[in-house]
């Protein structure tokens, strides 16, 4: 009796397993056979959102399935990441992963409900751009060296601004302040637009701004770009010196974006997603739209994405730990 019931169980398990396997095989063959969703960790309008809409536009055209963009802002991107981690691992829920979610947050936040390295896997990188250090026009210095000298002559009197503790602009800027040994006050603002407003009025001297906000102001003469936070000059704006040239090679923070899915997603689906999205990113039209945000395409395979993100984690970890920044 006992034996037969065990056999029954065994047979049942086998049947279920076979069905499930067959199910996944079928799912992979005709992926996608329903609508996809792309979760964006920020409100509409920024580069995260624009990239999601470019990807959505491309996927729905080539696959004939809608790819619905869902903005899920909050908690520095952690709410969106948590949502994707809790969704089924079938490749239908995509996440726009960025510097925070994929690399920095795990060192900054004390209690994260997910682990980006354990629970998420990148299908492809999308695009990246360095940050730009801009000074308001009330500052007379025209090079970073001049500005550093000016602050050293006026210790404790000048201000710099950031869009929130634990964000990559704040971490990059704090690194620069530490390396240059500057005695300045850091002033927090809610978002980069508030910073630009304050900078135009001369309330703060400098900030590390994102490309698409800094470049029009720089070209219009309202702020002066002193450096890009990279080892080399940025090909789209070669007139701006790099941080490495100015003598701060480890201020190397880029804003970058990838498409991530649940880590349990079958590998063939991850690869299919990555390949198709990368093909879309390499189109002339996408490249042009990226360039208007100051970004360059870095799409490729899941393995390339893994290497890029690992390098970023290795870069940010000592920085966050060195600055001793934690957020609840």
């Amino acid at each position, binding site marked *: 009796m006992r034996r037969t019931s065990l056999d029954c169980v065994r047979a049942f398990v086998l049947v279920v397993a076979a069905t499930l396997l067959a199910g996944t095989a079928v799912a992979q063959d005709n992926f996608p056979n329903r609508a996809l969703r792309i979760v964006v960790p920020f409100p509409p309008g920024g580069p995260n959102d*624009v990239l999601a809409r470019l990807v959505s536009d491309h996927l729905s055209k080539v696959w004939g399935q809608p790819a619905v963009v869902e903005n899920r802002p909050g908690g520095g991107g952690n709410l969106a990441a948590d949502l994707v981690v809790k969704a089924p691992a079938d490749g239908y829920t995509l996440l726009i992963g960025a510097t925070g979610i994929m690399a920095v947050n795990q060192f900054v936040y004390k209690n994260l409900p997910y682990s980006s390295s354990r629970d998420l896997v990148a299908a492809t990188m999308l695009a990246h751009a360095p940050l730009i250090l801009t000074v308001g026009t009330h500052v007379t210095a025209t090079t970073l060296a001049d500005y550093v000298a000016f602050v050293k002559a006026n210790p404790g009197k000048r201000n710099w601004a950031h869009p929130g503790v634990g964000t990559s602009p704040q971490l990059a800027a704090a690194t620069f302040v530490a390396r240059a040994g500057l005695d300045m006050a850091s002033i927090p603002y809610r978002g980069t637009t508030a910073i630009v407003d304050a900078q135009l009025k001369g309330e703060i001297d400098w900030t590390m701004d994102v490309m*698409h906000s800094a470049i029009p102001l720089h070209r219009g003469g309202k702020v002066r770009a002193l450096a890009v936070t990279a080892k080399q000059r940025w090909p789209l704006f070669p007139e701006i010196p790099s941080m490495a040239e100015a003598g701060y090679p480890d201020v190397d923070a880029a804003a970058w974006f990838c498409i991530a899915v649940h880590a349990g997603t079958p590998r063939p689906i991850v690869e299919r997603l990555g390949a198709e999205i990368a093909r879309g990113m390499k189109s002339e039209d996408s490249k042009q739209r990226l360039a208007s945000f100051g970004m360059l395409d870095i799409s490729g395979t899941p393995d390339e994405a893994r290497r890029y993100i690992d390098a970023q984690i290795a870069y940010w970890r000592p920085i966050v730990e060195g600055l001793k920044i934690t957020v609840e």
Partner: protein
Amino acid sequence: MELFDNLALGFSVALTWQNLLFCMIGVLIGTLIGVLPGIGPVATIAMLLPITFYAPPIAAIIMLAGIYYGAQYGGSTTSILVNMPGEASAVVTCLDGYPMARMGRAGAALTVAAVGSLFAGIVGTLALAFFTSPLLAVANSFGSPEYCSLMALGLAASVVLAQGSILKATMMIFVGMLLGLVGTDVQSATLRYTFGLPELSDGIGFVSVAMGLFGMSEIILNLERRLRQQGVIAKIGSLFPSREEWRRAIPASARGTGLGALLGVLPGGGAVMSSFASYALEKRVSKTPERFGNGAIEGVAGPEAANNAGAQTSFIPLLILGIPSNAVLALLAGAMMIHGVAPGPQIASSKPELFWGVIASMFMGNVMLVIINLPLIGLWVRLLKIPYGILFPAILFFCCVGVYTLNNSWFDVLATAFFGILGYMFRKLGCEMAPLLMAYVLAPLFEENLRRSMLLSRGDAMVFIDRPVSAGLIAATIILILIVILPNFRKTREVAFKE
């Protein structure tokens, strides 16, 4: 005249059939989403963004801008008809618009709102075309200390929004301030009053608070009072305002327009203040302030004009400096960038046909809006004849859909329900919601700017007095508080002496 050449260029762009059509589509969509409670321009523009990839940049931006200011027109409709403010600027419209609707004057309120909005929209657009630099100078004189003092004035003036007990209104202001401080502290990134809920880490959503406190609690009250009655409003009077109503509304619209145009330029929360400031002003200058809150037409005309004038002039910081004043304009800035047009100081000289074309389209759009909206008023008002048993589930349904689409989060829907019940309790206790809501909006701005000013001044509080604009605002705040306190103080003393 270079300016007239520019405007001529603008109209030559805006008056092509294609751009007129896109403008028309934009304002039509804007009107529709404005009327649906909760579904805001942010979700709509975000959804339409990929479609505009295939349109020429100017046409796309004209359409998206049309959605934005079109939604400002439509937003007043739900406030007046069912007491549902979809955004901060519509809160004060509820205060007198809804009582007017209950008296059968919904048509008049909507007409005054639409005509006032047309006037304000056109004046605002003229300001955008002609007075950019003086308005920018005003905006530039506002640093953190000035914003802090402006918010202090706003908080003090929140008392004026109430009609009943000043003590209760003051209490509601403090409750509102506490609600406004929920979330992540900007300076230390510490979480405050979030009770371990990650959904609260960016604060409580405005739409949840406003819709819950005003709209949902109203529905609960209506169900309690007269479930079996046919419709919310028994009689529907003339759709058009009487001569007396026009006489009261016109100067209010004019004052509201001026105030809104000025405050709309301030990116750090000026637009939020405009409709509210206009209401406070109307109540102050009125010879019969006791009518406010019971259906005073000035209380609809002024704030509605202010909010539309502000919507137009809030394009100034965006188009001239690249600074978006609110979430919708931030989205619009993103849309412009997708089309390869970075909003910023260069846009007027590098893309004059776009810059002036969009401005010219706003004249056309505002006229179209009134042509669309006036005939619709009859239709909206007739909605009130629908039996309440059918109307209220529909309202609740649209509310939930709208609230959900904001962040795609069920938490926001639950929060709305929570504030609905809280609002019901407050009403039973005779506490008014408007002061709470204003404090909830202003408190985080006040705190942020206060602490930032102190950081910038290295802890010297004299910064608020040393700067003339800030000193003026502080003086106004103190005077306002004295005006409110003294008569009450005298009264209590008289009572005390009698005994």
